[in-house]
């Protein structure tokens, strides 16, 4: 039928001169071979890499966690250093050009005065005071000295103000004259680690309890399922509030930190446990599970060695999606004054200051911890979505 060309001309009969290869369909190009031989994790990585948003989100998270790790270096001022002369100073934006002339990154210094009407301090940027930032600098101003991780003394910073009397408050200062930007960076250490610590706990609980329910089934499964349903029907935040109200007021900051993490994890595991259970229910019917059982493997070994690894990727994806909820829970509790308390500084603790609406009208920059919170939550959501799509690379 199709052996006529477009013009109706008969085509010449074609015979390939190459030797006959009967397995040509089964042979793979090198790229195909690389693809088919790749491990599951490698495939997932390839698939995740194609998800642009997830990659960007992952980069942002990496940056956030790194700066939390090296908070002392990234922030120009020490966490609790008070600039007594700069109470509620507004943010100093970074400029590059001064009167049309390029000077590199610099800030304008402040002129301080007192408003005669309501005796408020007023800071006006003075265009004569050009204060170029110094980068990779070693101290030389007040508030520069720190103890790195509480272990070594140091005064090395990523960037510092120009000289001793100069200031650099990228996001302004709070009511005690503490630099907001530095405090947010230090706060990231607590806020971001609460998410990780909480998810570790809730992961363990979820895998163990969900594993038991899914593997044994029967009445054990039923009891656990009912309990999970009850837990999930609780509105979580009021319950968290009630539980954290039970933390004694005299508890040490470290104890409070761990108690809060525990409380958050206690209400979060049901979601993970459900995911584990449903996966287990499906997987334990597979042949390899039966084979392991016939070979005499103990339930613990079957769950831990054979079943969990086969859905570990799904678990990681759901864990990534659960972390932002924990960060938000800590922020909300600390914000309400029930969670972490000063001297521990987290984003929620910083936001406590904003409960006074009068304060934020005059000094809106104390609301800036809102930005990293939203950024983190968004980044985790995008990364989690990407991971979830990549979790099943054979689809």
């Amino acid at each position, binding site marked *: 039928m199709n052996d006529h060309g477009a013009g109706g001309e008969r085509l010449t009969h074609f015979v390939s001169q190459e030797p006959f290869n009967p397995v040509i369909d089964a042979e793979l190009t090198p790229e195909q071979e690389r693809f088919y031989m790749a491990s599951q994790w490698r495939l997932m990585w390839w698939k995740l890499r194609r998800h642009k948003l997830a990659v960007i989100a992952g980069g942002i998270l990496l940056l956030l966690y790194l700066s939390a790790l090296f908070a002392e270096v990234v922030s120009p001022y020490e966490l609790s250093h008070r600039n007594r002369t700069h109470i509620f100073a507004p943010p100093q934006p970074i400029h590059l050009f001064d009167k049309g002339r390029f000077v590199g990154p610099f800030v304008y210094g402040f002129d301080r005065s007192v408003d005669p009407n309501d005796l408020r301090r007023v800071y006006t940027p003075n265009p004569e005071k050009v204060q170029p930032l110094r980068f990779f600098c070693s101290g030389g101003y007040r508030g520069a000295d720190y103890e790195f991780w509480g272990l070594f003394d140091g005064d090395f910073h990523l960037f510092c103000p120009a000289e001793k009397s100069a200031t650099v408050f990228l996001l302004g200062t709070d009511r005690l004259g503490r630099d907001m930007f530095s405090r947010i960076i230090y706060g990231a250490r607590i806020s971001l680690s609460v998410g990780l610590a909480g998810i570790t706990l809730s992961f363990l609980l979820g895998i163990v309890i969900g594993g038991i329910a899914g593997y044994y089934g029967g009445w054990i499964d039923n009891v656990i399922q*009912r*309990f999970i*349903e*009850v837990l*999930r*029907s*609780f*509105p*979580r*935040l*009021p*319950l968290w*509030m*009630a*539980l954290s*109200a*039970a933390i*004694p007021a005299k508890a040490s900051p470290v104890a409070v930190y761990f108690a809060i993490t525990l409380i958050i994890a206690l209400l979060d595991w049901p979601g993970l446990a459900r995911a584990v259970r449903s996966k287990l229910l499906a997987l334990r019917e597979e042949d390899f599970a039966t084979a392991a059982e016939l070979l005499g493997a103990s339930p613990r070994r079957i769950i831990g060695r054979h079943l969990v690894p086969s859905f570990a990727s799904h678990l990681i994806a759901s864990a990534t999606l659960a972390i*932002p909820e924990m960060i*938000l829970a800590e*922020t*909300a509790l600390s*914000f*309400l*004054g*029930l969670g972490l308390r000063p001297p521990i500084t987290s984003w929620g603790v910083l*936001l406590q200051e*904003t*409960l006074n*609406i009068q304060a*934020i*009208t005059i000094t*809106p920059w104390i*609301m800036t911890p*809102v930005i990293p*919170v*939203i950024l983190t*939550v*968004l980044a985790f*959501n*995008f990364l989690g979505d990407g991971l979830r799509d990549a979790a099943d690379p054979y689809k």
Partner: protein
Amino acid sequence: MIGYIVHRLMVMIPTLLIVSALVFIIIQLPPGDFFETQIAEMKARGEGVDLNQIELLRRTYGFDKPLYAQYFGWLFGMVQGDFGHSFAHNRPVTELIGERMLLTFIVSFATIVFIWVVSFAIGTYTATRQYSLGDHFATFMGYLGLATPNFLLALVLMYLANAWFDTSIGGIMDDQFRNQPWTWAKAWSVLEHLWIPVIVIGTSGTAGMIRRLRANLLDELQKQYVVTGRAKGLPPRRLLWKYPLRVSLNPFIADIGSILPDVVSGSAIVAVVLNLDITGRMLLEALAAQDMFLAGSFLMFLSVLVVIGTLLSDLALAVLDPRIRLTGGPAK
């Protein structure tokens, strides 16, 4: 159908019992009780403390009895409509929380309706115009809405209203109506103030619902019966409304059970930020002061609100979906 309703009601009773036991354990968790806190406070102020009187109060409220007896006393009291006594306010709990509960209920209900209406409109729009500019914009806003915690949204809105319009958007009604009996004017005032908390609490739920509706509708629109309908010349609007949209509306009812806890949670913290006379701040104070009956009643009420809401959504789903009605369990 009747069998299913009875079954669901029977399941609800043990659930509520476990909930009440958990709530009781939680409010008992803080070391000491209200009176100990108060004795310490009065001593700190240098006031004399009449220990006999405190002991009498303790006995009146049954604090000297073993825990299980206290629990059952509390439970039976609640069944009969007696929620105990608030020590901090020195009034029966029922008097204190009655109106707040009603307002919490109104806010939650209005939020659910808001979620339905907005996600219906936007979800249908984005699914029928996939990958259009509006779709991308809605998806982006949806991500932002999901990621922004509601109390921060409330904070930002408060600030913007204050900075741009120089008004306060806090409160659930005008001040002159507080602690007044209900009148039309008061109800109107509540309605006027309702929309801010409703938007704030409902944003993340709406974003989630839009996503689900969009995904459902997109799935449905690719099915063969839709293609057939289009091929035989059904008008587009009728083709959309007749089946695909109806089928994809399932999560509107089915997801109430998972949205409602979030809405109630959200209302608790947003109430603190926006200074609403619903549960938030009073619960916070009751927890801090170990005013256990008041705190317990709030927790209990919020949980019951969720449990009953879930029950209603399950029943509504059974009416709508014969698969559930006939097999006796939700087909998930």
